[in-house]
């Protein structure tokens, strides 16, 4: 084993091990628990950063592979197979960064039963690192469950208002989503006669045997809805804002920032390249649903007065762009969606973190009961303005490149240009709610409630221990924004080699025109011709090595 492989494996094992020690009650005392937690969150962070910079994806494919055929169920083609490729490597690093920030926040949170809290959070962290490091699809799913289940418990135990009922709702909703996507994955396993249950083998097998378009559409549909629920695709998004509002900060950070990317990662990395015709058939519907995320959820975000639910809804809104990038069915769209996923994970986590800092000072999440904080807490104001502007896509931060790439990909196909115009309205919508929040919280003079609160609880600026987690995330966002190549080259090598085998451009000529809203596209005649062209241009093998 090379050092890199040890780091990869360790990023999963170390948090799991520390968590086990915490559960077992080794050492006793919260000080020990904290020290162990530093190790548990620090190791994945270091591993993520080191592996990100050591990654050499110039040939495409996986690096640092670890393969154990004995672990797993060979009868079901399941094997233990870890490794990183161009898409997972940035997300893996992002999981490490957000994990450290969330961990540091949790360590300082002073929560009751801190030991249990940290132990559960470490299980989550271990699962998150594992899901991006897995090549085998079974383990990919397994690690996701590892990360998901602690969230339910943690919301139920340490959550805010209505935590029990919200925990229950989220559990049912997300388990349903996970179940549907599991169904899709099982269907993939059964329908494709591959040696192993991982992307390269499946893709290799599909290159030799063609899968019927109707089968592709069914499996992709299962995966899309299952994963869609997990990513809060409109109209399956209502759990998200509610859940994040109730969840403790570290959980919101890890869930909204990292765990939610699981579904999109599955769709972009696995589902769309394996089932291109399924993806194309669903694309028109997905475009409208994603637009629902951007516009409808965007408007709902404008109406929020509670800071934390505004951040929650805002994060749901911006996931719409990722779905748009996927729905375009091009390498540019998919690559930009990954870029946005990385940046979005960082910026959302930062926003949740800062909202909690604000709440600690003002005693409330209601934005109308704040005001004028900038003069009292200039450093916090500085961070919050930066995070808000990153969220609304200001150049200089990573989100801009992702959003811009998605817009660019929407412009390629004339049929998608209506979506380009509607989706671009999102840049105005997010500016409205982002800057309103800044003005309400930090500018002007303090509200009466705040002044009353301040009399009993003097307001102080951020302490160094609070600056560190926020600073780590902000630096990562700036790195992405100023030197996008650092990430985009890796994504490009992978998505490029993965999607270039699929001639989406040829396939997309027969996107059902009936689902597209432009005037020329509607009408029987056009449907007929598009159907004809479908028959003519249908390639014999949708996936071929050319």
């Amino acid at each position: 084993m090379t050092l890199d492989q040890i780091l990869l494996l360790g990023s999963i094992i170390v948090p799991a091990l520390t968590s086990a020690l915490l559960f077992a009650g080794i050492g006793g005392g919260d000080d020990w628990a904290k020290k162990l937690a530093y190790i548990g969150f620090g190791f994945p962070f270091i591993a993520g950063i080191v592996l990100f910079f050591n990654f050499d994806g110039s040939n495409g494919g996986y690096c640092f592979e670890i393969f154990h055929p004995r672990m797993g169920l060979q009868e079901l083609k399941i094997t233990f197979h870890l490794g990183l490729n161009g898409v997972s490597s940035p997300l893996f690093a992002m999981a490490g960064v957000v994990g450290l920030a969330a961990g540091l926040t949790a360590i300082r949170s002073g929560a009751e039963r801190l030991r249990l809290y940290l132990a559960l959070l470490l299980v989550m962290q271990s699962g998150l690192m594992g899901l991006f490091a897995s090549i085998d699809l079974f383990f990919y799913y397994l690690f996701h469950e590892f990360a998901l289940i602690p969230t339910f418990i943690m919301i139920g135990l340490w959550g805010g208002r209505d935590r029990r009922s919200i925990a229950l709702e989220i559990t049912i909703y997300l388990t349903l989503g996970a179940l549907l996507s599991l169904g899709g994955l099982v269907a993939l396993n059964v329908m494709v006669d591959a040696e192993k249950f991982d992307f390269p083998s499946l893709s290799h097998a599909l290159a030799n045997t063609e899968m019927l378009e109707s089968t592709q559409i069914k499996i992709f549909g299962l995966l899309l809805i299952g994963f869609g629920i997990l990513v809060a695709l409109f109209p399956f998004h209502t759990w998200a804002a509610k859940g994040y509002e109730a969840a403790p900060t570290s959980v919101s950070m890890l869930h909204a920032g990292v765990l939610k990317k699981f579904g999109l990662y599955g769709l972009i990395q696995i589902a769309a390249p394996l089932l291109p015709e399924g993806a194309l058939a669903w694309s028109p519907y997905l475009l409208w649903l994603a637009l629902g995320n951007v516009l409808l959820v965007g408007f709902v975000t404008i109406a929020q007065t509670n800071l934390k639910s505004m951040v929650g809804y805002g994060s749901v809104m911006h996931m719409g762009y990722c779905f748009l990038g996927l729905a375009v069915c091009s390498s540019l769209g998919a690559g930009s969606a990954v870029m946005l996923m990385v940046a979005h994970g960082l910026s959302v986590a930062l926003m949740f973190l800062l909202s909690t800092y604000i709440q600690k000072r003002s005693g409330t999440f209601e934005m109308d009961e704040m005001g004028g904080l900038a003069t009292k807490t200039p450093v916090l104001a500085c961070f919050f303005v930066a995070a808000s502007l990153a969220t609304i896509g200001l150049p200089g931060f990573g989100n801009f490149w992702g959003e811009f790439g998605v817009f660019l990909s929407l412009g390629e196909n004339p049929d998608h240009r209506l979506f380009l115009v509607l989706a671009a309205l999102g840049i105005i919508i997010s500016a409205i709610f982002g800057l309103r929040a800044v003005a309400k919280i930090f500018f002007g003079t303090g509200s009466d409630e705040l002044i009353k609160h301040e009399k009993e609880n003097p307001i102080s600026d951020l302490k160094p221990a609070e600056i560190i987690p926020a600073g780590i995330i902000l630096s990562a966002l700036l790195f992405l924004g100023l030197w996008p190549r650092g990430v985009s080259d890796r994504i490009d090598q992978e998505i490029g080699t993965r999607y270039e085998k699929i001639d989406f451009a040829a396939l997309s000529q027969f996107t059902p025109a009936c689902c597209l809203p432009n005037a020329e596209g509607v009408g029987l005649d056009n449907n007929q011709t598009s159907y004809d062209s479908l028959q003519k241009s249908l390639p014999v093998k949708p996936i071929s090595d050319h």
Partner: protein
Amino acid sequence: METVAFSILLLPLLSALITLLFLRKSGNIASLLSVATSGGILVFALYLIFNGENEVFTWQTTWMKMAGWELSFGFLIDAPARLLLFVVSFVGFLIHVFSLGYMADDEAKSRYFGGLSIFMFSMIGITVADNLIMIFVFWELVGFSSYLLIAHYLTTDEAAQASKKAFIVNRVGDFGFLIGIVLTYWAFGTVNLLELADLVDFDPSLISTFLGLALACGFIGKSAQFPLHVWLPDAMAGPTPVSALIHAATMVAAGIYLLLRIDFMFTEHALSLLAILGAGMGLYAGFCALVQRDIKKILAYSTLSQLGYMAAAFGLGMPGIALFHLMTHAFFKALMFLGSGSVIHACHHEQDIFKYGGLRKKMPITAITFLIGVLAICGVNFLSGYFSKDAILLTAYNVNMPVFILLYAGAILTALYMFRLYFITFEGLARSDKAAHAHENGALMTGPLLLLSILAVVGGYHSLYPFAIVESILPDIELVAAMPNHLWMIVLGTFAWIVGAITARNFYGRVGDVDPLSEKFPTFFSLCKSKLFFDQMYGFYIKKIQDPMARFLEVMELLFISGLMVRGSAGVAALLGMLGKVCYIGKIHAYTFWFVAGTIGFLAYASGIFGN
């Protein structure tokens, strides 16, 4: 060369970063650092201008690559870029120096000077960018620095509202600009300015009116043109030197520079639309300026009007003249804004001109330099504004009569409202204690005023400039020089400012606390004061349409998705559970009944009663 180009770009960024990280509490060091930085920028800019040997300098590297789309980070330093570099670095340096005096007592000095450095970084980025996406990046960043600086006095509600408004309105413009860029990329396969120009040169049918106008949305937002002009007057809530630098001399003029960079993308129709829009703005903003009481708002509307002149010049097919007017305007408008800053500083932040009066005797340098600015903007013969403005008027006269009429009426109006401002502020008697006790400011503030007033006088003589700076405007100047009706235009131009000045003298020579116009022509006055209800319309949209719609959608979401779909399905499951529960009543005869019923049902099914 690229080292210098990188240095000029990164120097202000570095300075802002150092200020942010280390100098937050040492405002004096931060201000000196920022001023030194702007001095460094000036030196580098002069190096770039004069060592380029009047050639086009390009350099690029890959910034981002994704699936065949390659974005370069590149420099394009050609003749227009050199001129704007000169204006930005020179005016920028003077305004930095002025700020040292103006902001001496401010509590948040390091935030202010850090913001100025970020602005210089972004503005230079726009100037030297070689492709549309890179322009867009810095375009948003100037918007951000403008936001930051408008919000400088952040405890006031005015600043909080104005900064938000400026950013969001600019975003509306950027929305169109963004779509324009995306469509340009897919139509041409590149966004590099030089390659685009070559492609259009090769096949002029590639351009379309729609594409040009989509790109021009960026200009409309940033230069605050109709219908997105509402943010600029509000932006005066920022410190006065910021208004001078960002909202008069450079950033708002960047819109014109953008048009110039992509002038080949415009069809005839798009150009004539821009000309009419610009000329209309020239007149409209003049009427608005006529009834304002706030000294900065008068200047803001005057900026809108002058930007309209530049847009008209561009629309008439004279981008060089637009750039020429951009340069002279930067000098005299920065001069007047700094002059107003000097007055505001002396009168303890009083901005109502009817509370001034008689300041000429108390602040002679400010008054005289301000008067020079007024004369220059009115186009008084042989001052800087005369050359650039008359070139625009002459072009309009020869090319497009309706545009000329609008612009000419605007010129008379300019003289009227500018002399009104001058007479009410500097002549007559002091009308408040603050004005009565005003003193001239120190050399840090009067120095830049004197230097700018020299440029406001001689800035129009293009032969005084080195060729490297004015290269881009010479061809158009020669075109205008060859046009007929020169003498006639001199008469008309002179007539315009003299009429305006005399009317203002008679009307506003002796005023009290009330605007004489509101007493003599109340209807006209209130019509101008209403600014044609644009602010009310947007306010109505936000309060009565956007926000209620947001709340409506929130309720709908709660009702239908959260309620009906999610809770509803949970309810159905619960209902089924309750129905099932009914069967389990815990009595043996009930279970026997169900057992018998089940057996009968099974037998019936097995015997094929329900069909096969």
